[in-house]
């Protein structure tokens, strides 16, 4: 398959691995920010191809995992309102809230539907004019423009029963917050698809101010090995810069159309991240002029103070401080069939990835 097979060639991966072993001298820690990267590293067994000097840690780039408990509880409360249809990307329905999950609410009679695109939610709204459709908007700069486009389309088509509960977030503030918090990182493997939208300028401060290497990477094994090599070369030579490995997709300026749609619909707000707490200007809120599509404005529900599951160390895992195997619940009380924390639910969650690819 084009764009897949050529980036999984064994000989190519091994030759990058050899090069890496000869280049790497210092002990370094690289954070792969994106859950898709964590998946690829484990799926293709890349750890075994790295020299012992290079340690990879997983970051907060899985949208399901970083969505706050309050957001999940709010979604659950909305699902109980008569006449409401909740539409959501699949993974979210299994995330345990403080008391229950959307999956359990669905079994109790709530109308919760999995969609693969927010535009399906619009169709559902059109064909159910007597119901209110609330789309649970999660994800970073990759999925947020789609939600924004759906809101603009709803406005244009005068659809009045379509709403968004936004937990959309942006990447740069959380990366900066981790560095400020003192998590030891020498360089970032930056998310390819986020950068395809935003462009590379969002990382400039990390390189120039914080002195960290940043390489925007694709998601195939050759991509990731090359990105790790590029970072290692930067760090060894003491010249941290922002580079793009994923050149077949990412352009320096990003996707201008998507950026425009995004800013037209959303504005930045302080937002709460699971395990990381409140991070200034890290979330996306629907602008006042489009507030008729904002579920939080339309529906008022009482949500009790959220409680994090006991014993779960998702927060420390999301900050790269611990790995899932450090968690006493991992693969025991917490597993994909019966997840305790969000990192075990999402296909791209660090815990789910460790569980799936443990050997």
């Amino acid at each position, binding site marked *: *398959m084009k764009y*897949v097979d050529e980036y999984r060639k*064994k000989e190519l*991966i091994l030759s990058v691995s050899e090069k890496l072993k000869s280049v790497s001298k210092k002990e370094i820690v690289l954070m792969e920010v994106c859950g898709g990267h964590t998946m690829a590293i484990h799926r*293709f*067994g*890349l750890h*075994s191809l790295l020299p012992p000097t290079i340690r990879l840690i997983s970051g907060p780039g899985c949208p399901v995992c970083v969505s706050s408990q309050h957001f999940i509880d709010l979604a659950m409360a909305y699902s109980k309102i008569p006449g409401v249809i909740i539409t959501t990307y699949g993974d979210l329905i299994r995330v345990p809230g403080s008391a229950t999950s959307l999956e359990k609410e669905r079994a109790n009679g709530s109308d919760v539907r999995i969609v693969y695109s927010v535009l399906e939610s619009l169709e559902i709204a059109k064909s159910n004019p007597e119901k209110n459709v609330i789309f649970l908007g999660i994800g970073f700069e990759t999925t947020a423009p789609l939600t924004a486009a759906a809101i603009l389309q709803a406005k244009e088509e005068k659809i009045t029963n379509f709403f968004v509960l936004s937990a959309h977030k942006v990447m740069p503030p959380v990366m900066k917050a981790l560095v400020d918090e003192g998590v030891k990182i020498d360089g970032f493997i930056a998310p390819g698809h986020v950068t395809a939208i935003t462009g590379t300028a969002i990382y400039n401060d990390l390189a120039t101010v914080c002195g960290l290497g940043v390489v925007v990477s694709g998601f195939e094994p050759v991509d990731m090995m090359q990105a790790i090599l590029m970072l290692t070369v930067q760090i060894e030579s003491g010249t941290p810069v922002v580079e793009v490995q994923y050149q077949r997709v990412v352009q320096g300026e990003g996707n201008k159309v998507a950026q425009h749609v995004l800013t037209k619909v959303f504005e930045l707000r302080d937002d709460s991240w699971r395990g990381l707490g409140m991070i200034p200007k890290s979330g996306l809120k629907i602008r006042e002029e489009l507030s008729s599509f904002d579920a939080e404005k339309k529906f008022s529900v009482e949500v009790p103070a959220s409680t994090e599951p006991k014993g779960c160390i998702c927060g420390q895992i999301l900050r790269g401080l611990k790995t899932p195997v450090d968690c006493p619940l991992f693969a025991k009380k917490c597993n994909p*069939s019966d997840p305790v924390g969000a990192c075990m639910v999402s*296909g791209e969650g660090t815990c789910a990835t460790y569980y799936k690819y443990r050997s």
Partner: protein
Amino acid sequence: MLSHGSGGRMMHQLIEDMFVKHFRNKILDEQTDSAILSIGAAEIAFTTDSFVIDPLFFPGGNIGKLAVCGTVNDLAVSGAEPLYLSVSFILEEGFPMAELETIVESLAAEAKKAGVLIVTGDTKVVNKGKCDKLFINTAGIGRVKEGNRHISKALNIKSGDVIIINGTIGDHGMAVMNARESFNFKASVESDCACLNHMIREVLDKVPVKFMRDPTRGGVATLLNELVGKIGLGIEIDESALPLNKGVKAMCEVLGFDPLHIANEGKVVIVTGEQEGHRILEILKNNELGLQSAIIGRIVSNHPGKVVLKNETGGRRIIDSLSGDQLPRIC
């Protein structure tokens, strides 16, 4: 919850903790695709299945064809010659007669092809909104030939035995998904839905087989995990040997599914000795339902209880049973 019907771990937990707990008996405890009953001198295989697939029509078949194939295959992989089926319909008020007739016609045509008779049935109609269009329940009876009783029990499996499949994996699940969701993938993916009894009969008549089962819900991964649980040995699968349609591969890449977890409705997994394996492969490849047959892995003595996949890039990873709710209502 819907996950309890996915064919994965939660369904097995429900079966164990609820149904087996209350119904316990020696025959049920075997937990094979068909129950094997000794009635007088005869050995009879007996199975039942329900079909709630959405949509009713999908590329490569419809609920009627699927009902026959699913039931016939459950009997055939138990080493039985399928003979008689029952078919019951639960219809939602207002369901169009023309659609029903199309479904019944394909049911009849598929039964004829498989050489089974539909000898009894039942019809119920429920109020609009109380069931989704049409559900079908079947039962099937077959005769187990002398010497084939062991086939669903996975006895005598040894390290070095080979694992064979009769073609590409994941076609049914992805075809249904593509038909149901509005992806508009241009890839043409058709369900593999087919009765395997004639092909299986030919194999069993000519070559000894140690174990056979159809990898339906939960896919090949779940089947192999159940097998390692029974035999106390491990399995190693070679990713590069897995037959995979281009369209299915592309859909799985885009949607993040593992084809090993996707349902099949015209596939059988066979375990046998190395030499026998090559003879079986020859037979399968000469059958139109087995053109892309392959040896996909082996039974191994290291890592007992685990299914490990050697991937194309040299890495190794554990393949687990499906957990949770990947694609509800695919059969």
